[in-house]
């Protein structure tokens, strides 16, 4: 029982060390692209971690979680557009607006079960998506450019890429810590109890609806904060952030990494986004001995034809995701 050397823990420790050292590597090599990529990964890992709270631990398959990314982003974008660039205003508004939306959506959706829940969260997400498309003043379909990153009165300078990266990483670690505290608390046990048998939890006296709704709102608020970070990172927000396929991506991250596991969404986000970057050159490398360079480059463009079936294989043969695979290595 030497838990310290379990493969999963080693991978997680290695991953966190790597994430902490990314800016150092970037400073040494001057590879700015890597910084941009990993800032994005860290932010989306935060969104995926918040989704895991409801999807993995709570069993609530929300198919509209990307909406909170959009709401948080639009809170930053719209306030900046109207001249309010203070992060002390923008970020609480981003969190508050997402929490409020999650409260409304959750209150209505949590009455339904199973596939109806998947579909009603999707419907609300589409509703908000089209609301974004109709925001004529704020760029409608084309989106809104955020010219200035949130200002924190000189306390912290988000325009510095390294500072911004470490802030995102700190918030991600904070989110994972929060989820860890939550799921191991009485509150978290009720949520997980309601996932496996809601009726029994009610029978022993827990008003599970209220617990589940609270959980739904917390997840939405965290994802809203991630959205505020994302808008600061890309300097841009558009309805495309809220498209249902983006919500699908978040679900993929959670399931790929491992549902209802603390670091699963982080592993999933890193795997998915790094795969997206690595698959094209990898295919190109493997294909180049068999064909001309230009042909190999063309073949490499079709990397999604490998990624898609990969999801199917994970569903069919790796129920616990990557986290589950690593755990089964330990069990032998």
């Amino acid at each position, binding site marked *: 029982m030497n838990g310290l050397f379990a493969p999963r823990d080693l991978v997680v420790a290695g991953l966190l060390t790597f994430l902490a050292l990314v800016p150092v590597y970037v400073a040494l090599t001057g590879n700015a692209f890597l910084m941009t990529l990993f800032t994005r990964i860290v932010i989306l890992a935060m969104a995926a971690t918040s989704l895991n709270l409801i*999807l993995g631990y709570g069993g609530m398959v929300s198919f509209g979680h990307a909406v909170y990314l959009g709401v948080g982003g639009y809170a930053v974008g719209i306030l900046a557009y109207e001249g309010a660039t203070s992060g002390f205003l923008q970020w609480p508004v981003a969190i508050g607006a997402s929490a409020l939306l999650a409260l409304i959506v959750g209150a209505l959706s949590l009455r339904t*079960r199973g*596939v*109806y829940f*998947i579909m009603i969260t999707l419907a609300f997400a*589409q509703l908000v998506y089209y609301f974004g498309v*109709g925001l004529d003043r704020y760029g409608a379909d084309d989106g809104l450019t955020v010219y200035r990153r949130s200002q924190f009165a000189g306390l912290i300078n988000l325009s510095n890429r390294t500072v911004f990266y470490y802030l995102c990483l700190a918030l991600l670690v904070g989110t994972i810590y929060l989820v860890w505290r939550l799921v191991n608390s009485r509150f978290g046990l009720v949520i997980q109890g309601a996932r496996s048998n809601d009726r029994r939890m009610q029978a022993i006296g827990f008003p599970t609806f209220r617990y589940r709704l609270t959980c739904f709102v917390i997840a939405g608020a965290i994802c809203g904060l991630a959205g505020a970070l994302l808008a600061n990172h890309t300097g841009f927000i558009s309805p495309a952030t809220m498209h249902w396929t983006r919500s699908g991506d978040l679900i993929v991250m959670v399931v790929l990494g491992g549902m209802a596991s603390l670091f699963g969404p982080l592993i999933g986000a890193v795997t998915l986004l790094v795969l997206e970057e690595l698959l094209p050159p990898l295919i190109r490398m493997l294909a180049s001995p068999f064909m001309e360079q230009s042909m190999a480059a063309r073949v490499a463009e079709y990397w999604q034809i490998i990624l898609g079936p990969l999801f199917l294989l994970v*569903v069919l043969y790796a129920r616990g995701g990557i986290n589950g695979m690593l755990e089964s290595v330990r069990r032998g």
Partner: protein
Amino acid sequence: MLLFLEQCLNGLQFGLLLFLLAAGLTLVFGIMDLVNLAHGSLYMIGAYFAATFVALTDSFVIGAVLALIATLVVGMAVEVVAMRRLYGRDHLDHVLGTFGLILFFNELVRIVWGPAGLTLRVPDWLNTSVRVLPGLDYPTYRIAIIVSALLVALFLYVLVMRTRIGMLIRAGASNREMVGALGININLLYTLVFGLGAALAALAGLMQAPIQTVQIGMGENILILAFVVIIIGGIGSIRGAFVAAIMVGLIDTVCRAFLPDVLRLVLSSRGASTVAPAMSSMLVYFLMAVVLVVRPAGLFPVANK
């Protein structure tokens, strides 16, 4: 008034198209309990096949029939290779697995047909208009869509309610093991039902193709509308899908046509033309949310589900 009538016909046409897509989805959903996000990909593939075969054979009808058969075969192949393994799994697994299939099909289409879209022309003999009422000329092609979709709806009703195959389908929906125990090859039945759904999606795709362009991802937004339809109608109910499809089609089309004028009273004309389409799209999802809150199992719930 005539304009309103014309928009209602457009709405009816769009609704019937949605019904074709939703019918396959609700059959698969109701009978195999499978959430198939890749249904929109079959719609796209049907349109691509049609554009190709019509160009090859120089005949709209022959090309359309070939496209239907080809998509039927693709659908059955997908069922045997992938979907069959997903039955009995969690809905989340269906969402994820079929989401992967969407990526796969989009990329496959890009490899086979290239990234640029295709066009499918309305054949000359349908590219006319018919005087429906004095003062109202309506395109023959759209009338052809309405008539053929209604015929398909009738065919589906007869197939499911009046034939032996339909009886087996309904039996398979309520108790899979029992049907298998009575000596019916349930796997073959499921493959056939999935192929039928694929062909219906292809029919919708190829009929819509001349109205919009044939392009990658064309099935993704209309797929969500088809899901809205089957949720409003009640999962597994073809009658529900029919009623809900026409409701959604009418709301979407009529609001899109008349909301700009209404909004222009309160907004600038540029603002109204941006907000109106977004608002009419929102109305459909709003309707679904209301239906689910009031009747969580849809308008025509299927018993034992």
